[in-house]
């Protein structure tokens, strides 16, 4: 079979046999592809540092007849997360992006919008401030996957939420007004809802330079994480680790 070429983002690797690696890639041409990088653990000649999570590469690979896993031939690094200092919050944030892409994307289904989103967020994750790019990525990812409910109206009564208090619950697919909120609901502030609206209107670069702390949009991130976890029906490993980061 002919060798294929595509831009791709490496999501994660697993050890396979003595020296091989099983690699999950998000390719621009074919969506999520799994393949085997032969001898990648022993020799760095063909892949070098290109198999590190969230490395943006030009991948050469080929499909094998009647086999689910592609044969990975070689990768050319276009941008590596190792080019900037790897702080602990940054490592967790990159891991979170990789986990979301891996868990939410189906195999072999092209999704150029998500690919462009990931490419726009990766440069923003070069800095030590991870909260803005993480919020932006989670918000857009939830929307592009079709899981984001309308944030301006109550899911129970349909009433408008603009200017009034809004609540969310781990088992409910949307926001609720004060009258319809469930027991043990959390509140989402009006500022977080307006931030979400702003993020839908502007590219990520327009938020660069703004001072962000963990508190900024924390309620929005909690809502998004709960929504995503409800749809994939499992806990995101990296979400818990992000939660533990102190600032």
């Amino acid at each position: 079979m002919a060798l294929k070429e595509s831009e791709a983002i490496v999501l994660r690797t697993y050890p396979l046999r003595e020296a091989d690696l099983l690699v999950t890639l998000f390719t621009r041409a074919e969506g999520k592809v799994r393949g085997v990088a032969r001898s990648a653990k022993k020799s760095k000649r063909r892949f070098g540092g290109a198999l590190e999570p969230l490395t943006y590469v030009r991948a050469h690979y080929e499909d094998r007849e009647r086999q689910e896993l592609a044969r990975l031939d070689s990768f050319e690094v276009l941008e590596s997360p190792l080019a900037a200092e790897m702080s602990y919050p940054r490592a967790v944030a990159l891991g979170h992006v990789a986990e979301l892409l891996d868990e939410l994307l189906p195999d072999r289904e092209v999704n150029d919008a998500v690919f462009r989103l990931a490419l726009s967020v990766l440069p923003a994750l070069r800095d030590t401030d991870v909260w803005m790019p993480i919020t932006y990525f989670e918000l857009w990812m939830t929307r592009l996957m079709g899981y984001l409910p309308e944030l301006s109206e109550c899911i129970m009564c349909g009433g408008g939420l603009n200017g009034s208090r809004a609540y969310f619950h781990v088992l409910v697919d949307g926001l609720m007004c004060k009258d319809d909120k469930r027991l043990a609901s959390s509140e989402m502030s009006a500022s977080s809802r307006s931030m979400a609206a702003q993020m839908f209107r502007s590219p990520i670069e327009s938020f660069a330079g703004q001072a962000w702390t963990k508190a900024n949009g924390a309620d929005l991130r909690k809502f998004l994480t709960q929504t995503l976890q409800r749809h994939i029906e499992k806990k995101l490993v990296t979400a818990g680790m992000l939660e533990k980061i102190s600032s």
Partner: protein
Amino acid sequence: MARLIEELKKLPGIGSKSAQRLAFHILRSSDDDAEALAGAVRDVKAKLRLCSVCNNITDVDPCVYCSSATRNQRLVCVVEEPTNIAAIEKTKHFNGVYHVLHGSISPLNGVGPEQLRISSLVRRVENGNIDEVILATNPTVEGEATATYLSGQLRRTGLKITRIAMGIPVGSDIEYTDEITMLKAMEGRREL
């Protein structure tokens, strides 16, 4: 026989075919060889433990490195796994001692700093008997994150924290070096 094959299949990298081959090899081998293998498996569980100082795998506590009078106990090299020690010892140029973390920070696998043996390293440093800590974790995203985290935790007056150099392997060709390795080699260049 089936029991032996089942047990061998639990080993990493051993599938049904390999387990069967190994089981038949053991069946054909002499009683002494089979007994020696069984004894070695028993001993590795009964006699080996972690060094109370550096967490290296050892049969005596403290381990040979930590109890050596000829090694520099004020120079500590931090590694991810006990197997990394052998690679450094092969150089015959490192005369310090070690600290084994038993892993690296790996968010995708749910491994954070609290799962690693970092607190015992911090205690060693706080005791004040260390001049330099060499961070010899792997040059991967996980290894780099671990090294950066450790440098933040260990920073105190008078303690020198260093990171092992990264760059082009000896005997290789610059022409075939990947971009990141080359970048790291340029960043870590030294004056002659």
